[in-house]
């Protein structure tokens, strides 16, 4: 997937890497890359997504969880909720007192 905005190009691609065979197990890693380019630079962010495990005729796609990122995002969510409550609750208390 590719998009262009104000001279910047955004590319979001999922691709499979080379297959690794260990014994009777064949593994195909999958990763997702975000490539952003602007006239004077760019950035690339690649992260592993899943692993396709093939054993004989059996095929299974195992997702790779980024636990650190999930925990960080969870805590960030809590912090945002806390900040919103800190804004909302005093406002509600003041309104009730006026009423």
């Amino acid at each position: 997937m590719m998009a262009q905005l104000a001279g910047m190009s955004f590319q979001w691609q999922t691709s499979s890497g080379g297959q690794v065979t260990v014994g009777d197990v064949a593994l195909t890693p999958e990763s997702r890359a975000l490539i952003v380019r602007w006239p004077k630079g760019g950035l690339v962010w690649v992260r592993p997504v899943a692993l396709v495990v093939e054993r004989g005729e059996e095929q299974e796609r195992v997702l790779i969880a980024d636990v650190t990122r999930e925990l960080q995002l969870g805590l960030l969510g809590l912090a945002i909720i806390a900040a919103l409550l800190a804004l909302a609750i005093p406002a509600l208390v003041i309104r009730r007192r006026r009423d």
Partner: protein
Amino acid sequence: MSAKLTKAVISLARDREQSMELLDRLIAVAQPGAAYGVPIISGDYTLITASEVSLGMGFGYGLGGRAVPEPAAPEAAATEGEPPSKEQQPGGLAGGAGGGGGAGVRPVAVISIGPQGVRIEPVIDATKVTLAFLTTLGAMSVMLARIFRAGR
């Protein structure tokens, strides 16, 4: 356009081309295969690391000054004892360029292939999680302080 200015512009264009070429090479390095390490065999087990790879690069350049044709006879003004007029002063050009970049690799999981099958062990960055936890704790403290203050 003076020869100096032409030379400077050509030099900047060349620098830009080289920078873009470098960026293309960096992007090629960070293609999806970079997220997975080379399999490491240890006894009955084969280990593959899965990492998050990120890199960025940026550069900039600028050119400024006054491009004035060099005076035909600069000695003439000097011999008369008067300072050269603005038109007689030689043009000056200045330019600069700079760039910067960074790259990082963070392990996300270790894939272990052994007699028991394929297992994916997550790698948890305790420092990052602790920092996020402390930030959340700070936000919670501020929230509680505000609520108590409003309750009084």
